[in-house]
């Protein structure tokens, strides 16, 4: 009996060790998608971020892992997918390197850029003057609108009805301030990620979720008993986050984004992730970084 138990334990340890080895191979292919080799290898001036990334053969990009349809980890394939990922791929392809995705939460992504954990942030990040003090932004690649999401049977019709109700948004996002201004009597529930907001409204522990319309649309795609109400609270231009002061890299990212918008890839991506569900068409944004920054002042 005694030896039996010991054998069982040894078996468990062995199984764990084996599993560990097995996992290594799998996840290596799972989290990094092989970039299509850039047809014509572009040359970059030595000393630029682009040359450095080319040298390392990889770029680390902070994206959302739980915000469909922008950045979402698919448990079946292990890959991260979404609109932000399409933009990220375009940038990595142009560099001719492999993109490596790490999860950027609303309250750590600025830090990721500052300390170099990520080379680039593409995580539904709104361009604001306040953030612009800490990091640099690319030209806007998407313009979202702030809206409110409620349950299908809710009596909340607009932002005015939020008084005394529980509203969920992400810690460190722009909506914390927006809601304090537009619905000062609402009770804020600040969580780490929007998937927690979705869980909270589904389980009824909050009455509403407020954030960008496209993120809310992603929630409706997952649960069609939810609905959008009220008008547009804010305009939220998304920009790629770049380390403060890296002008060459910003110019490069702007150039790739401009091409992404003009050559049809933007429209295809929009339709794939949003349009096919909402049956709406949208043109690539024309707003400039200047306008976006003015908006937040």
């Amino acid at each position: 009996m005694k030896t039996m138990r010991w054998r069982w334990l040894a078996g468990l340890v062995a199984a764990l060790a084996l599993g560990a080895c097995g996992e290594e191979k799998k996840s290596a292919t799972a989290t990094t998608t092989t970039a299509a080799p850039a047809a014509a290898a572009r040359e970059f001036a030595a000393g630029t971020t682009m040359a450095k990334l080319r040298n390392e053969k990889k770029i680390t990009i902070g994206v959302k892992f739980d915000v469909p349809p922008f950045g979402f980890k698919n448990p079946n394939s292990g890959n991260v997918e979404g609109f932000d990922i399409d933009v990220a791929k375009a940038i990595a392809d142009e560099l001719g390197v492999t993109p490596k995705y790490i999860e950027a939460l609303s309250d750590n992504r600025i830090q990721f850029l500052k300390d170099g954990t990520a080379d680039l942030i593409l995580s539904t990040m709104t361009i604001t003057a306040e953030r612009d003090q800490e990091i640099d932004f690319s030209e806007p690649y998407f313009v979202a609108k702030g809206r409110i999401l409620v349950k299908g049977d809710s009596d909340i019709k607009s932002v005015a009805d939020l008084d005394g109700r529980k509203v969920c948004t992400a810690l460190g996002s722009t909506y914390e301030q927006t809601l304090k201004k537009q619905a000062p009597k609402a009770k804020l529930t600040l969580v780490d990620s929007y998937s927690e907001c979705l869980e909270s409204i589904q389980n009824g522990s909050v009455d509403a979720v407020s954030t960008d319309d496209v993120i809310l649309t992603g929630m409706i795609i997952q649960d069609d008993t939810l609905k959008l109400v009220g008008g547009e609270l804010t305009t939220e231009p998304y920009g790629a986050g770049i380390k403060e002061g890296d002008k060459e890299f910003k110019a490069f990212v702007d150039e790739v984004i401009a091409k992404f918008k003009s050559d049809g890839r933007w429209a295809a991506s929009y339709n794939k992730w949003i349009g096919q569900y909402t049956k709406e068409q949208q043109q690539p944004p024309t707003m400039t970084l200047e306008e976006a920054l003015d908006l937040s002042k």
Partner: protein
Amino acid sequence: MGYLFDPHNWEWLVTGNNARFLFEGFLVNVQIALIAMLFALVVGLALALARLARNRALSMAAGVWIDIWRNLPLMFVILYLGLALPQPWRDAYESAAPGFLPEALRTGRVFAALLALVLYNSAVLAEIMRAGILSLDRGQSEAAAALGMSYWQRMRLVILPQGLRRMLPATVSQLITLNKDTTLVSIIAIEEVMRHGRVVTGVNFFGGVPAPVLQVFLFIGLMFLATNLALSRLSRRLEIRERRRIGTTVKPISGAEDQLAVARVD
């Protein structure tokens, strides 16, 4: 009860890649726990020796260090290091991390998590080791001194081999606590079982079977329960063997959260 055992609510477990995905996440937790434990033991021993040193200043400094890290919430330490650990440190880790580790364990953020776990657990283990060493009969040290051994000889040849043996069971139960604590690193976005659990509960975006939160996290809880029960069996067995060997009764040291208390010698 109907909701809990409704087979429809458990269907996710056998469809798609869900069960495997959760298990893979769980392995990351176990590996983080093992690596952190290894380093915590080394650092803990150094701290315990410093605390017991005859040099007053060294002993005091070690004591303050131990008390600070022991009394801060681990959640706090993880969050802070996750946000504030300097990049060169992360880079150093990324380039030093051996290739056989899974991808999830080779990112710089894991270094922040490991550092937090080691800082906290080494402080706890240092206290346990100190108690183990102090629990030895003074006569042992005196007899060794009478034989002409130096301080370090006494430590190395007489005190440590016995003291460390006595704390083996406590170390295994600390591993249980550590294993549970690895769930906290999910907050700094390390791809372990809690994150995988959250992803699985959202699989219906990709047209999968709905995976209810209650069932998914019960399943995760069961994985921890099974592993930790095995560990606590092991700990108890070691303890009984030790007791038989020394012939005295070591105070029973059970779960990690109270073992600290039992090990405290004032």
